């Protein structure tokens, strides 16, 4: 039971990673489309300063990666506490 649950969680994590990588790839192949949108957009909104350089450098992906690692760590801890309480509940019932 426990092994199966662990396997499920690992699968989940892998799924999440692929989601991240896909999004990354899509974002990196898209700059051409982005620029056309920029030209078409009216100048007043296009002049608003955004983190465009950060995105072009690709450094934003490090930020997303870091936050995902932190989230993964916190959630892993929560899951392990959850399972510990579950085990204790089972022990108490017997």
């Amino acid at each position: 039971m426990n092994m199966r649950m662990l396997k499920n969680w690992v699968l989940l994590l892998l799924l999440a990673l692929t989601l991240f990588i896909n999004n990354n790839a899509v974002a990196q192949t898209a700059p051409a489309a982005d620029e056309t949108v920029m030209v078409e957009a009216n100048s007043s909104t296009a002049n608003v300063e955004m983190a465009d350089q950060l995105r072009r450098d690709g450094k934003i992906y490090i930020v997303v990666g870091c936050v995902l690692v932190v989230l993964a760590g916190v959630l892993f801890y929560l899951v392990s506490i959850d399972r510990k309480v579950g085990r204790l509940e089972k022990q108490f019932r017997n």
Partner: protein
Amino acid sequence: MQKNWWKVVTVLLLVYIIVAGFLNDVPRLAILNESIRNTYFHVPMWFGMILLLLISVVYAIKYLKTPTLRNDIISTEAARIGLLFGVLGIITGMGWARVTWGEFWSNDPKQNASAIGLLMYFAYFVLRGSFAEQQQRARISAVYNIFAYAALIPLLFILPRLTDSLHPGNGGNPGFGTYDMDSKMRMVFYPAVIAWTLLGVWILNVKSRFEILKQKMYEHAHA
């Protein structure tokens, strides 16, 4: 696993909102700039708090009808996690306010009202701590809980609208229309509200199961 499907949903939604929240397009707005993405992280804290405190008050009423230990524990723990979300909301809000409104605290009606709201819930825990006898503690704090929630709603949702506030969606009677959000942002914002709230409910689930178990073991040892 069947019983825990919603925890899997929570994880998937949280991963989605972090990836989409940082990488998706957002409206290009002056002053807000990229900080508009805080909508996915700061605002759901308050939604989560309101819902957790609602769970708390529902279990407080349930306790008054049927005084079981379980109702008292769930009510208290929901208030605790709701308060945690509120504190996170106020800290993230202050950071956001510093870069957009110029100050960490500009005595905005909604800022002040939410600070008062949090203090009321801190008082709830002070009140609980002042009783030695379990049933008395549970009953009186359940009654206080109802009053606290009844006061919190006008503080957060009515009073700031009667005056001018820096917060969007205040002053007048707007809906979400004034949140500077486009349909692309809503695709992340609504899942974000659900995800963070579910995370709170998950923590509540684990914490109250732990507390109930602790109490049972204590009773078992003394029986």
